């Protein structure tokens, strides 16, 4: 749990230290991220908001080890990504990180159960052994009875819940969600967020990239990106004082 001169808290799942990302060089260079510091702990959901081109999606790909930053450090569960070989990075991504995308990214020729099992099987588990935790993950998102269905037989909301199950299967603890409700209607989107929130409350951590204020409000913290920099942060502290008591 140590790296170059830095001690990491065991509950700290992700830490970005002065992360910058630049595409291109010279006069045509585009700065997507400029010195971003961000931490996500266990049990914490952090929403990232900002206009198109503010760096939201780049932040997610850098945090997920899909692209190395041009400057700064990304630390996932105590591992300095810059210190890992390509193979070690692939293993870390499979074991620690779960991605949820707007368009679900399920494999159409596999059943819901097989889709959720896939990350474990890629990690060397047998199908038989992988099916048990995959089934558990599907039950958590209330799709235990849809395990043998193919993606085409599921609604958009159900497919996204399968994607959430796939993102957390096998105890993976950091969920990186890029506009996960973008293709869903308002009520279904809320159900998917409720699932995501409950996974985080159960001990995972997550980053939720969204342009929708109501969806960002499910997070514990909301950071606002502009031109690749975090310009502000909103942190929920309590239940609302605007309301009276909860009816019994």
């Amino acid at each position, binding site marked *: 749990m140590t790296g170059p001169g830095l001690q990491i808290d065991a509950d700290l799942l992700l830490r970005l230290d002065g992360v910058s990302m630049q595409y291109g060089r010279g006069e045509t260079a585009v700065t997507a991220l400029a010195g971003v510091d961000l931490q996500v702990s266990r049990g914490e959901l952090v929403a990232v908001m900002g*206009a198109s081109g503010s760096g939201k999606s780049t932040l997610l790909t850098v945090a997920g080890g899909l692209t190395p930053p041009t400057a700064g450090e990304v630390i996932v569960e105590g591992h300095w990504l810059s210190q890992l070989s390509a193979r070690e990075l692939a293993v870390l991504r499979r074991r620690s990180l779960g991605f949820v995308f707007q368009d679900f990214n399920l494999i159409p020729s596999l059943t819901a159960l097989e889709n959720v099992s896939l990350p474990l099987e890629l990690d060397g588990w047998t199908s038989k052994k992988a099916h048990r935790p995959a089934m558990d993950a599907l039950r958590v998102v209330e799709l235990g009875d849809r395990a043998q269905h193919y993606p085409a037989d599921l609604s958009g909301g159900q497919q996204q819940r399968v994607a959430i199950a796939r993102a957390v299967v096998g105890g993976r603890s950091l969920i990186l969600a890029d506009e996960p409700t973008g293709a869903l209607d308002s009520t279904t989107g809320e159900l998917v967020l*409720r699932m995501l*929130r409950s996974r985080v409350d159960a001990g995972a951590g997550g980053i939720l990239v969204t342009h929708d*204020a*109501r969806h*960002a*409000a*499910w*997070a*514990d913290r*909301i950071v*606002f990106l502009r031109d690749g920099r975090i*310009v*502000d*942060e*909103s*942190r*929920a*502290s*309590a*239940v*609302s*004082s*605007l*309301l*009276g*008591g*909860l*009816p*019994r």
Partner: protein
Amino acid sequence: MSVRQSLLAILNQGPCYGYQLRAEFDRRTGSTWPLNVGQIYNTLDRLERDGLVQKATAEIDSEGGEAHNTVEITDAGRLEVAHWLDSPVVRTTATRDELAIKLAIAVTLPGVDIAHVIQVQRTATFRTLQELTRTKNATDDPESSEQLAWLLVVDSLIFAAEAEARWLDHCENRLARALAAGTAAPLPLSTDVPKRGRPAKARA
């Protein structure tokens, strides 16, 4: 006015006295807009004056033996309730909005960093939105009509906060365009002053 119509609609279910009406209004609106008893009795006086309610027989409290002055709805009152439920709520004048006034005035003043004003407000608006969402998430699907009514009120506040956040984004974009076009200059005091005004006090 919705309080007047709401109390009348509650009375349409049976005679009530003042404190009872207050409790009924609270439990049907999530205690979000509490009424004081004085407000209730003033409203009942006006409803009686307009022939929409009338005094009923004093009711004896089953526990303390205390008598309550109850009122009951009239036929005209029942028609009024039906009309209220059947009609849209029409806003005839723009509601005085504290935030819209603040930004409108701020944009005309010299030396104000309006982008900062917007950002500070956006953070506060999002905090409200987060807290409302957190409050809502503490409940599962509604198990009673009281909870359903409460959730509708929470949703209304959540959508209002979301609209405010989107409006702030829009203000920011409009401001950027106005700054680029050079049309965001502060507004000096007008030399065309109104003729009428409060006269200065005579010097002693």
